[in-house]
């Protein structure tokens, strides 16, 4: 039956006139543009970060196209999408980590509260202290656990005395849920911890700088299920004090930890909405196809 239908379609293609074909192509382009308009509610009442018309180019490649979205206060925003859709690239725009990538160019505006972070006058160093980052693969420094957490406070001059530094390290490790496991071996190298512990150490390291926003780039992709559960619990707790943007490949994880979800597809922000709605009632066809597992 399907084969017969295909043949019919083929025959119709053959007899189609050239101008007719052009008309169809033009319609397809229009649809494409329409589809690129973000569906759902990308903007919120109380934004912490505001992104407008953000475009990212890697050399000639247009990696992010016209993305506009807000990140609300004390919320967890999950960014999902198939591999190579640009969600990590977009995340790295939020604290200008893309500056270190050769050939990367960003246009558009991103505000942290009232500060346009791509303004020429902005210094990236304090910005990155305000917008911390946790990476896909745990990357503790080859130093002791204590020095790993103390690294940020030391370089930013946040402490005056040794005891103050110890307090920050202790409270950061406690917030990251790692204190009980490492309190008796703070002088051991951070690289000697297990993968899940290393990732929590990296989170503690980021917290120690007292950021306002924490960016997490697939923080659990290198972890086993139990370590993942620990880190997810931690994210839920951290939400009380910080704004968190998390990129994840794991849709269940997005559903578990986030309040809002953004779906990226080939550099476009396709749909944004409350996590409950996105996963129960997606409006865009691409979102539905992705979350129902038709691709990605």
């Amino acid at each position, binding site marked *: 039956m399907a084969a017969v239908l295909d043949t019919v379609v083929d025959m119709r293609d053959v007899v189609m006139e050239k101008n007719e074909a052009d008309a169809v192509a033009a319609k397809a382009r229009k649809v494409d543009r329409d589809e690129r308009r973000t569906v759902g509610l990308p903007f919120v009442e109380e934004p912490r970060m505001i992104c407008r018309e953000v475009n990212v180019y890697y050399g000639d490649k247009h990696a992010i196209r016209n993305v506009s979205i807000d990140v609300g206060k004390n919320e967890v925003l999950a960014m999902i999408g198939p591999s190579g859709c640009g969600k990590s690239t977009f995340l790295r725009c939020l604290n200008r980590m893309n500056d*270190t990538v050769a050939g990367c160019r960003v246009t558009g505006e991103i505000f942290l509260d009232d500060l346009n972070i791509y303004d020429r006058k902005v210094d990236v160093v304090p*910005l*990155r*202290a305000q917008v911390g980052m*946790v*990476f896909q693969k745990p*990357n503790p420094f*080859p130093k002791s656990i204590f020095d790993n957490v103390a690294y940020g406070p030391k370089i930013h001059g946040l402490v005056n005395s040794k005891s103050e530094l110890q307090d920050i390290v202790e409270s950061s490790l406690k917030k990251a849920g790692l204190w009980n496991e490492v309190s008796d071996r703070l002088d051991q190298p951070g690289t000697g911890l297990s993968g899940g512990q290393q990732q929590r150490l990296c989170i503690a390291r980021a917290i120690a*700088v007292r950021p306002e926003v924490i960016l997490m780039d697939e923080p659990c992709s290198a972890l086993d299920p139990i370590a993942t559960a620990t880190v997810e619990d931690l994210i839920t707790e951290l939400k009380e004090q910080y704004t968190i943007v998390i990129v994840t490949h794991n849709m269940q994880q997005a559903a578990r930890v986030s309040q809002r979800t953004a779906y990226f597809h080939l550099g476009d922000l396709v749909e944004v909405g409350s996590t409950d709605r996105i996963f129960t009632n997606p409006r865009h066809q691409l979102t539905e196809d992705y979350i129902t597992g038709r691709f990605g």
Partner: protein
Amino acid sequence: MQRNEAIRPSIDGTHMSSAPLITLVLILSSLAYWLGRRRAFALARRPSAGKLHSRPGYYGVLTGLWCGLPALVIVAVWQMAADPLLTRMAMDGVAAAKGVVNPDQINLLVNDMRNLVAGNVVAHEVDPLIQAAADRYLGLQRISNLALATAALTAALVGAYLILARIRPALRARNQVERVIEIILTLCSTFAVFITIGIVLSVLFESIRFFQQIPLADFLFGLKWSPQMAIRADQAGSSGSFGAIPVLTGTFLISGIAMAIAVPFGLMSAIYLSEYAGSTFRATVKPLLEILAGVPTVVYGFFAALVVAPAIRDLGALTGLPVASESALAAGLVMGIMIIPFVSSLSDDVINAVPQSLRDGSYGLGATKSETIKLVILPAALPGIVGSILLAVSRAIGETMIVVMAAGLAANLTFNPLQAVTTVTVQIVTLLVGDQEFDSPKTLAAFALGMLLFVVTLALNVIALYVVRKYREEYE
């Protein structure tokens, strides 16, 4: 020349005859390879024989190996053992007949015989006894060569036959071939180690002879280096003194100046090249820097002696400082320039090997570039950096040419870089240039100095290893 007793096999006499023999063995062994492979193929085609354990080529290689290897080993061992044996047989009774007992004089007789055999011009009239011995030697050699050929070819044929007869599907030819290859690889890898041991032992034995004449304490703690000695009792000359301290001080002084130049320049340029420079700049400058390492040290020597040393002297004259025309400073400066690429190139490689994720982690915490380099990258790259510095130090300590040309030969005990000094390597060269006699401490002192140098560099290596282990920050 007491030590020149080495019985050298005359190259034209014995080794020429083995070349065709080795060729023949190799031809036989390729024939054996072909036969073995053919036999394996034939077996594989026979349906009743079952499946071959290895591919047919392995059966061929196994046959070839068993044909060639034993024969070649026989040739090698025979060649090494035959010459001394033949000489002894040929010279049997000659020394006694001539009434010679002194081993030195016996050696002279042997050399005469050898020269006759090789057809060289003999200094004096030919002794009939020696002539007879030489004839005897040639006869024995002919027999020996014939016997060798027979033995080697028999071994080749027997070896090939034994394997050919054993080829059947169950023979695990691949495993055996791989085992032989593994043994060959092991031998190759230990070769360098044995050579090193040999070098150390040869230096050690000569040093021991030196220390039999000069007390160890005088050598290690003596403050005066003046190796000139009267050779004969009636000759006028100094009695010689062998205190190594001035020479060692010179080495450390010059190496220290060199490292004071090379480490900062090399390390800074490595940091710039790996962390700051653009890719095109790096691709241009790094090879150019490495060219510095390729300049022959003699050329650096010219530069030091003709440009740098006079410049320093003139500068000294301007400022009123007394500068010798050959100074430790000139040699050290030029040597430092010479070893910059060792530090920079290797350090650049290890800094680049630090994972990008560590940099990202540091930048992500709001660290500046210089904080990231100082606090994360350099500690992580420390073992490699220490390694590169160590390599540079051993180059500096071992360097001879620049020092000969720019620092002079005077063994002054001084820490003043503006004076002429000498180094261990330079003294070794001057002691061993020209005629020597191996029973004089003057010549043997060279080996003692070599031993001292070896011990010093070894100690430096051990210290560096300890430092690296203690302070290394291991990533991954």
